[in-house]
């Protein structure tokens, strides 16, 4: 039951993009086409699940054990960078088309604040190993949901007549604001 709660909370109620503002760069940058957005979302979900699976043992068995939790940031960011590098090499080998589609955004997952944020929140909330993995996966799923919805709206938006200063990033952010309002409706799910 707790696992389901964690999943719903991370994917919908406390969606990383819309309530913690993590992962805005790819959210704005790669959301112009549904296909790219979906690929980006899947790649990020994959990296996030792995990140949770890797950083949890690092934190629990190395940092806490040797009493150096202040190295948390350095250790996490190195682990994430290495993971992204591995995923990149794997995708390049296994599916060159996907690799080309993701292009520059794959290495950028390293600096996607959502991935580091995930590791930090995981420690802050003291999840155990299984909970962490669910949390990582749910966060990725929430990110995918938000970015795909946004790209769907933006594809339609190309035909809209928007005042010049608002075009591009500006209107994207304002729409994100409306999505955040809509997602607030999910908060009621938790009380029951």
């Amino acid at each position, binding site marked *: 039951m707790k696992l389901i709660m964690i999943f719903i909370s991370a994917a919908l109620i406390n969606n990383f993009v819309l309530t*913690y503002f993590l992962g805005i760069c790819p959210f704005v940058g790669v959301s112009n086409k549904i296909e790219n957005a979906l690929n980006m979302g899947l790649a990020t979900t994959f990296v996030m699940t792995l990140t949770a699976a890797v950083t949890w043992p690092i934190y629990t068995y190395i940092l806490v054990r040797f009493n150096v939790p202040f190295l948390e940031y350095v250790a996490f960011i190195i682990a994430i960078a290495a993971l992204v590098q591995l995923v990149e090499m794997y995708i390049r080998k296994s599916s060159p088309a996907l690799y080309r589609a993701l292009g520059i955004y794959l290495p950028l997952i390293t600096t996607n604040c959502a991935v580091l944020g995930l590791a930090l929140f995981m420690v802050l909330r003291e999840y155990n190993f299984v909970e962490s993995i669910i949390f990582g996966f749910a966060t990725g799923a929430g990110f995918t949901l938000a970015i795909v919805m946004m790209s769907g709206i933006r594809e339609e938006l190309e035909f809209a007549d928007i005042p*010049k200063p608002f075009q591009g990033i500006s209107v994207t952010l304002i729409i994100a604001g409306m999505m955040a309002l809509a997602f607030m409706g999910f908060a009621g799910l938790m009380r029951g």
Partner: protein
Amino acid sequence: MAEDSANSLWYEFKKGLWQDIPPFRLVLGTCPTLAVTNSIKNGIAMGLATLFVLICSNVAISALRKYVAVQVRIALYVVIIALFVTLADMFLAAMFPPISKALGPYVPLIVVNCIILGRAEAFAQKNAVVPSLMDALGIGLGFTMSLASMGFVRELLGFGTLLNFRVLGDWFEPWIVMILPAGAFVVFGSFIALVNWISHRKAAGSSSM
């Protein structure tokens, strides 16, 4: 010659304040811009913490630029940045516990603030220490100003206060939405539109002259 270099240093400083002002023009560092600007104080604290990390990392990276192999540079930069962020985080937690608490996990997240890695990659690794310092000062102050102005609008409309002083009277009904994530997105989007609009007008004005 001396004047030239002084001019170019001034230029490196000045460009961060308007021409390349980070969140609005380059759209970098958006997470903290949205997350901690529900009051002016939080915005300024976050801006100054980022400024500190940016100065230290720019100077360190610029000083090391001749000794770093190209292949490992990103990894090294990230580690350098993470070290300074750890310092800033501990300093805030020790000296200003309430602020540290309000900023929460967004202080460690300075590690992945694209502005800092972006300046390292675009500027510090190619330039000497002093211009890198000026670049960091300008960009960092521009970032702080941006956060403060976002905080100004959101705090004024969301609480009716400025720096915790009540400026709008009892008649004012606070717009709760401004404090919520939705308000952050809308204010940020509007600021970008405003900056676009001003530069369009400037460009139009100079071309007609």
